[in-house]
């Protein structure tokens, strides 16, 4: 019989103690697997959600807040900027560098039962001209509709909803819903929107968001600038806005504006729109419009377009707006927040595993007294000191291996069990069969740990006084 088989027999002979010890090891490993899988999913989710555009332009402030709110639909709504700034990207001073610009108006929500979804007022360009992800081969992956279609600019009260909103809220194409003013359950109900399209799942935060036509969003109560505050639409309105905030000494001059004559890089308001009944309505004048953020896909995607544009925006509107590369912010988020949190959790799980390894040591060490006679018999049968030491070490390794493998199964099983709940709550899709490369070192690490844990009882076996054990006394 091999030493492994002898060790296995000994382990099975103490099956209760062995099983409990292995179980404690399994729980530690399962916790580690959960941390690894969840972290991998979080990293992927954070990384892939911010694809398809290069810059987010918003009011000066926390770039993290801007990205979290715009990309992930969480956190506080950013402050507003004049719509005229958006026009600087569609047919103004920045248009030359832009492929498409998409305005975001944030701050409303859609309440369905116990759930709250963020409402985004935007243009159809979001789904027509911006991909939501890049495939491994570099090709863009565009939004697709599970049912229905994109909303039309002139149909002011049309909406497109994410796949998760549709499934959780039970909305389908043709249904109507009322957004709530503000982010909360108790805000006033706005006018009704009609669902005209349901997106295919994108595995991004947009799956749990509601997108309404910007034209309709701006017509809702409390969303328009008062006539008093409104300025004629031009670069002057931006300057006026700047001056209002910082005083006349700051800001820019109209002479710095470059005349743009190329194609429009976004969607501008129609002259006439239609309400939910089909009746004609007049869209909100541009001078009364404000936006929360602008997503910008630059024309020179593989060159320095984003950097140039970002520098230009930050220079021209220094102190008032910011142009943020979401990928950079996400990377920083992962490195400075998600990474350290993962590290702390991993350290905790490693500690659990070490405690479990100490459990193995205690379990085997405690059994050594009653087993010293068996060890002496094996020695009398010709087993060397090294042989009995190896057998005890192998027992430790077997328990750790059993615990480790059980833990891996348990960890992935827990991920599988929790997946529907997490997907429902956070919109993050967990795949229980997803393996993190770090899992590959779990087993070798457990073997090393078990060998260390088994060393003390193994040395006890090594030092067994055979003659004394066999005779009971000298």
């Amino acid at each position, binding site marked *: *019989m091999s030493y492994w088989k*002898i060790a296995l*027999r000994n382990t099975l002979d103490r099956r209760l103690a062995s099983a409990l010890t292995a179980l404690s090891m399994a729980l530690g490993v399962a916790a580690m697997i959960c941390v690894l899988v969840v972290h991998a999913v979080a990293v992927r989710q954070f990384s892939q959600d911010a694809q398809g555009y290069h810059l987010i332009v918003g009011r000066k402030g926390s770039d993290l807040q801007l990205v979290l709110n715009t990309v992930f639909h969480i956190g506080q709504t950013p402050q507003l900027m004049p719509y005229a700034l958006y026009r600087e990207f569609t047919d103004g001073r920045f248009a030359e560098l832009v492929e498409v610009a998409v305005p975001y108006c944030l701050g409303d929500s859609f309440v369905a039962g116990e759930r709250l979804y963020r409402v985004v007022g935007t243009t159809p360009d979001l789904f027509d001209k911006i991909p939501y992800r890049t495939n491994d081969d570099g090709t863009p992956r565009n939004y697709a509709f599970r049912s229905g279609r994109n909303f039309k600019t002139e149909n002011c009260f049309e909406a497109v909803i994410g796949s998760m909103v549709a499934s959780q809220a039970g909305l389908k194409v043709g249904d109507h819903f009322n957004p709530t003013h503000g982010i909360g359950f108790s805000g006033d109900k706005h006018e009704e929107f009609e669902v005209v399209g349901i997106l295919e799942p994108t595995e991004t935060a947009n799956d749990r968001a509601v997108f309404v036509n910007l034209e309709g969003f701006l017509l809702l109560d409390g969303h328009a600038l008062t006539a008093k505050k409104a300025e004629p639409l031009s670069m002057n309105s931006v300057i006026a806005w700047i001056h209002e905030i910082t005083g006349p000494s700051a800001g820019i001059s109209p002479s710095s504006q470059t005349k743009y004559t190329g194609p429009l890089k976004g969607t501008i308001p129609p002259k006439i729109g239609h309400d939910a009944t089909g009746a004609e309505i007049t869209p909100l004048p541009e001078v009364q419009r404000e936006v929360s953020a602008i997503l910008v896909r630059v024309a020179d995607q593989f060159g320095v377009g984003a950097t140039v544009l970002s520098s230009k925006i930050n220079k021209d509107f220094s102190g008032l707006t910011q142009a943020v590369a979401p990928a950079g912010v996400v990377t920083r988020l992962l490195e400075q927040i998600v990474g350290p949190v993962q590290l702390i959790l991993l350290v905790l799980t490693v500690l659990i595993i070490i405690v479990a390894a100490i459990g193995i040591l205690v379990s085997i060490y405690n059994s050594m007294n009653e087993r010293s006679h068996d060890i002496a018999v094996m020695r*009398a*049968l*010709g*087993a060397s*000191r090294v*042989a009995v030491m190896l057998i005890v070490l192998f027992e430790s390794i077997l328990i750790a291996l059993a615990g480790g493998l059980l833990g891996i199964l348990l960890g992935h099983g827990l991920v599988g069990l929790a997946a529907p709940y997490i997907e429902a709550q956070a919109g993050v899709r967990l795949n229980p069969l997803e393996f993190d490369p770090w899992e590959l070192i779990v087993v070798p690490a457990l073997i090393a740990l078990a060998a260390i844990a088994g060393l003390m009882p193994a040395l006890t076996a090594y030092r067994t006084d055979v*003659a004394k054990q066999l005779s009971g006394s000298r």
Partner: protein
Amino acid sequence: MLLVENIRKSYRDASGEELVILDVPRFGVAAGEQVVVRGRSGCGKTTLLNSIAGLSTVDSGRIEIAGVDVTKLPEAGRDRFRARKLGYVFQTFNLLSAFTALENVMLGMSFTGQPVDRQRATTLLDRVGLSSRLHHKPAALSVGQQQRVAVARALANKPVLLLADEPTANIDPAHQQQVIDLLREVCRAENVAMLLVTHSPEVAGQFDRVEQLENINKA
């Protein structure tokens, strides 16, 4: 086959005084011979067997088995020699409770550095009448059956010498004779020399050669 010459072994007691436990000028067993060593309790019978088996060392002298002076071997060498050339039947049968009868016999083959011969283990158990108990653990075997497994295990590696330390001490008189008959018969069949230690005059009376330990041990 076995030659013990001028071996001496002593301990120091609690007061530091040297206590000589073995002092054997000369003692031998021929190949295939069956010898009984008798002696009172505490006279060094087990110590003599352990010294011959290489489980404990002697202070001086030589113990030659099949031409090899085991006192000259390092510990690992003695272990390997014991596994390959010696069989040991203990006073208490010392079967390992986690292993079946067959595995207990194969366990004896596991430390020789050679492949385990499952067929021989099965044959030996068959020879001692346990072919129907191969996969029973010791707890499921009677006392007599356990001792038979112990005998099969001691012979597993085709030893040249079988050492038996009071093999009937812990079994009832009805089974004692069966064990002695089995040991003698199997050793004869396998041409294995046997050195059996006992304090029982009934057991000793069945052997042609009986040595009184007090006569060969001058300690």
